Structure formats: structure tokens, C-alpha cells
């Protein structure tokens, strides 16, 4: 694929072909990010936008950046996004209805104005200026040319940026660190707590999730004898992010028993 992209980049026409195929795809994927309900889908579309961008980089003689785009962005950063998505709730979908009145029209108007003005400005700045191209700059290879700049002219920013990275890594660790303010209860203490507590209701353990013999999953609360769902049978995290299934369909009166009668 890289070879293809390189070959496309050599001549004018193939590059144009590639551009006109990939650019609409990229824009469509970007739009899709805005419109899909599930964050995971957004992430997939984002990854595709990034891969397309990598093609564009390579087509524009930025071989190193193209590779880095794929390795760092599509590989590492998007994985990080997906990882966090998993943590937060991969299945959850957002409502796309706007809750802040007037925000959406303002945003769209501003975006249209912004895009129009930028296009107009850029057109004014670049129209009729032939691109010089990077043939001479990349004479010793793109990586070597970049390296020469990075370690001479930009060596100080390079060092600063490395410090920034370290700081960010430390910062993330500090933010993610959860300080335990009480000692973790031992099993013995937990068991004492269960039996010496105010009531013995949970002495045998919390109710297990799932509706017996009908449906079995951790996101379905158990039903109490009166048919109401037992909230403490499901992990609180699932409940909080709205991933808990409703139990209405499993209530006694609504159970479809026709299958059993047929037998």
C-alpha cells in the first residue's frame, strides 16, 4: 500500500486520482464521527480518517510523518481511546438531541462562516502559486532531512517537548492514581461484617444477577419474589452508565409460556 501511495505521488495525475477518491471518504468519515450515536463507532471512523491522512502525508513526500501517523496515531492513540471507551462503557450510546438551546445553530453557522472564510483566505494566499515540491529537500531521504532539522535548528524545542512528554506521563499517573484512604478490608472482616451487621439479609451474599432459567447475564438484575428488580444484584458501574437491562419483559405476568404449552 505504501508502495502504491509512493507511486501515486510520483506523477500528477495518479495523485489527483488518489486525492479525489480518498478525500471524499475522509470527509464522509469525519462527518460520520459527528453523526453516529456510539462512541466506539466514532473511534473506528476516526481511525479511518487518520489512515487516510497518512496516505495524504506520504503522497506529499512526508514519508516519515505518514508512518508515524499510522504507528503513533492509529496504533497508539486510537488504542488508548478505545481502551478508555472500554472502561467507560463500550456499549453506551449518546443521545444526539441538543440540550443547550441555540447551541447547534450557532455552532453550525459559525462553522460555515469559519470554513468559508478560511477557504477564501487560503485561496487568496495560494492561488496561482505553483508548489515547489520537496525533491531537493528530500534528496538525502525524508527521514535524514527531518533528522538534520530536528537535531540542529529544532534541538531545543525537541528537548523541551521531551520534557513535556515526561511531565504528561507523570501527570497522567498522578491523575489516575487512587489514594486509598482506608485499609482494604480483609476477607475475615468482610465476613464478620456480613454476620454481625444490622440485618442478616445479605449474610449469604448478594443476589446474583440474571433472571433464572430465562436470561442469564450480568447486566440483568435478579427478580425479587414480588417480581421487582433487585438493584444490588448488578454491578453499580453498569447501573450508573445505563447499561443495565430493563426487567420488565421478564416479569411474571408477561412471560411468554406458549412454548412450554406446545410441548
Amino acid at each position: 500500500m505504501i508502495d502504491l501511495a509512493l507511486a501515486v505521488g510520483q506523477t500528477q495525475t495518479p495523485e489527483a486520482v488518489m486525492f479525489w477518491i480518498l478525500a471524499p471518504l475522509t470527509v464522509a468519515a469525519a462527518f460520520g464521527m459527528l453523526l453516529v450515536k456510539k462512541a466506539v463507532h466514532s473511534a473506528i471512523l476516526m481511525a479511518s480518517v487518520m489512515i487516510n491522512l497518512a496516505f495524504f502525508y506520504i503522497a506529499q513526500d512526508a514519508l516519515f510523518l505518514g508512518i508515524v501517523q499510522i504507528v503513533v496515531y492509529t496504533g497508539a492513540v486510537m488504542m488508548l481511546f478505545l481502551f478508555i471507551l472500554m472502561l467507560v462503557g463500550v456499549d453506551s450510546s449518546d443521545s444526539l438531541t441538543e440540550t443547550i438551546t441555540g447551541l447547534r445553530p450557532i455552532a453550525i453557522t459559525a462553522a460555515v462562516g469559519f470554513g468559508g472564510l478560511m477557504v477564501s483566505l487560503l485561496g487568496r494566499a495560494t492561488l496561482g502559486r505553483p508548489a515547489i515540491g520537496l525533491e531537493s529537500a528530500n534528496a538525502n531521504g525524508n527521514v535524514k532531512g527531518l533528522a538534520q532539522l530536528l537535531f540542529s535548528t529544532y534541538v531545543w524545542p525537541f528537548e523541551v517537548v521531551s520534557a513535556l512528554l515526561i511531565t504528561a506521563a507523570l501527570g497522567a499517573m498522578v491523575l489516575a492514581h487512587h489514594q486509598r484512604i482506608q485499609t482494604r478490608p480483609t476477607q475475615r472482616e468482610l465476613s464478620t461484617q456480613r454476620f454481625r451487621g444490622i440485618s442478616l439479609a445479605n449474610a449469604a451474599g448478594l443476589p446474583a444477577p440474571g433472571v433464572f432459567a430465562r436470561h442469564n447475564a450480568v447486566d440483568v438484575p435478579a427478580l425479587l419474589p414480588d417480581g421487582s428488580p433487585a438493584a444490588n444484584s448488578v454491578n453499580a458501574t453498569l447501573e450508573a452508565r445505563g447499561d443495565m437491562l430493563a426487567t420488565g419483559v421478564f416479569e411474571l405476568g408477561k412471560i411468554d409460556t406458549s412454548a412450554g404449552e406446545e410441548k
Partner: protein
Amino acid sequence: MDAANYLYLSVLLFTIGAVGVVVRRNAIVVFMCIELMLNAANLAFVTFSRINGDLNGQVVAFFTMVVAACEVVVGLAIIVTIYRSRRSASVDDASLLKR
């Protein structure tokens, strides 16, 4: 082909990203939109590099990537922290500044 087409594409992507930041409520999607804006800027830099015939633009794009990576790391850590305390990744829920 005119290299300016890449710039127009970059503006388009940037605008979409900006709208996404404003419109979407899920903090992770908002973050991805920010990444999209950064990437659009990177595309513009790479194109400028090509138009001007030197590699400075690519170096700037490189630095942008590093900074973006930092931003993602810290930003996601913040999201996790907020999520841990409020059980929600919606940016609208973290609107305590008013009160």
C-alpha cells in the same frame, strides 16, 4: 493537481472537528474531535512544507503530534478521574463552574 486542494480538505476537516467539539456531549468523542482538528492542522503543515519546498512544516507537524499525544494522555486521565467520581463521561454533567 493543485496542492491547495489539500488545504481545502484540511479546512473542511478542521471545521468538522470544531463542530464536533461543540455539538457532541461524550467527552471521549469531544477529545477525538480535538484530535481531528489537530490532524487537519498537521495536514495543512505538511502541505505548506510541500508548497514552500522545505521540511520545516513537517517538523512542526511532528511537534504537533508529540503535543497531541501528551494532550491525549492527560485528557484521558482527566476523563477517567471525572468518570470515577461522577459515573458519567458527559461534559454537560461537569458544569459545576456556574454554581
